[in-house]
């Protein structure tokens, strides 16, 4: 049996820690593990969402000084102002700062395509487009989790939708 790396008792807990890409394996007895875990910076104690957000903006943009000068033609807010207050000025800002915001959104959410609720007034064509995006996402998850039966079903559904679209005469 392995010994605790901090005292001589037998190690009962094996912790693998990932820090900036490095892997550390720790073997600890129960008492040392308790102490270790209660000293690790976690949860709301360590991360202030505002700080994290600032870091994400800074790390996702290369030439920050040039970018700071950009401004939104609709509301006039500059990218620098957005950066300091963390709030955009108007819906149009998402277009005006598109190149800068996309990597940030990718960073925060891991995705850059909405697949949730659509406003009721959205046109029929975009509704169907959404259905397809959703199905493709589900297919990806199904393949990743090796649920092949579900994946096959989803693939059929996607193909059916795609053919239905292409066969429909243009209006």
């Amino acid at each position, binding site marked *: 049996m392995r010994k605790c790396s901090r005292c001589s008792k037998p190690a009962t807990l094996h912790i693998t820690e990932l820090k900036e890409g490095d892997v550390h394996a720790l073997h600890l007895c129960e008492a040392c593990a*308790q102490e270790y*875990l*209660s000293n*690790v910076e*976690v*949860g*709301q104690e360590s*991360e*202030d*969402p505002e700080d994290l*957000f600032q870091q994400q903006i800074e790390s996702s943009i290369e030439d920050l000084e040039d970018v700071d000068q950009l401004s939104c033609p*609709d*509301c*006039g*807010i500059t990218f620098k102002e957005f950066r300091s*207050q*963390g*709030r*955009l*000025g*108007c*819906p149009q800002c*998402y277009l005006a700062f598109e190149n800068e*915001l996309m990597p*940030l*959104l990718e960073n*925060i*959410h*891991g*995705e*850059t*395509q*909405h*697949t*949730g*609720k*659509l*406003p*009721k*007034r*959205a046109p029929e064509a*975009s509704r169907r*487009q959404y259905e397809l995006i*959703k199905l493709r*996402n589900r297919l990806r998850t199904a393949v990743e989790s090796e649920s092949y039966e579900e994946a096959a079903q989803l693939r059929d559904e996607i193909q059916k939708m795609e053919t239905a679209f292409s066969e429909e005469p243009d209006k």
Partner: protein
Amino acid sequence: MDLNGLAQTSGEWLRGTGPESDIVISSRIRLARNLAQFPFLSRADDAGRAEIESLLREPISSLPVDGELTYFSVNNLDALDRQFLVERQLISREHAEMHGSRGVGIGAEENVSLMINEEDHLRLQVLRSGFALDECWAEINSIDDALEEHVTFAFSEQLGFLTACPTNVGTGIRVSVMLHLPALALTKEIQKVFQAMQKMRLAVRGLYGEGSQAMGDFYQFSNQVTLGPSEQEIIDKLKEVVDGIIKYERRVRDELVVKNRQRLHDQVSRAYGILRSAQTITSEETMHLLSSVRMGINLGLVDGLEIPTTNELFIQTQPAHLQKLRDEHLESAERNVARATYIRQRLGSSNHEHN
């Protein structure tokens, strides 16, 4: 709706009923929406804010939700009333402290709160006692649909609903569940939960949201990702995770009872004893002790006290509630005395014994 009358009750979210309500205090979903034709609030001047408020106030007040919806102009409320609404989780701390025209529509059962001019033009919120996210979603979704009949929200096909802060864009949804986790906190197992949440991009917060301490062993778990997955996928993920945490808390409670029954019984009894006899007590100590007692009731270690009573005490011992119940302005030290008196009364200890 009369704010002074509300102080007598616990409000929906502390009612102490609903699925898994020994651990799950409440479920909540909020949606962030903005009017397409106005700048976000950081670029709106006083006139702009007033215009947005008057435009949204009408459709909000006529919504077909749980009976009557009462509208409050938050900028016309005094600081105590605003703090009171924050304590009841009917408005956010931010909304209470900002300036300019703003308001909130509150449903009769306090299940629904619709904030105008918070960080976004509109923040819809639906609350339920216990673990009831599907019910929350059904209701908030239909409120959102009903509002869309009257107004056009800022929306892009790629990015979904557009919000003032990019961290909310897409669905604009925040799904949160408030859990009471005294056993995980006591054994420090909660640290492992924090670590797991971070990896899954879920946030853990204290009782009153961002930056607040986990007072009374209350923890709010919520999604951080709002763009990409659908609302239902976000809800399902949180449900799955919370299910796991509930089981974890139960397991640790059971172990504690088996292994450390005497120590636990002692701790719970002492907490109960202090609450019944203290002459002055801070809000923080109250929360801490009530948390012990609440767990004690769930584990059968306390007789003659019900969960809803502890839930009511959690909220009624908060500063604004206490002042409303006493109907007078109290400084911090006076509140500590008033709080102790109130708790002694509610827990049925005879006063003459201590005076």
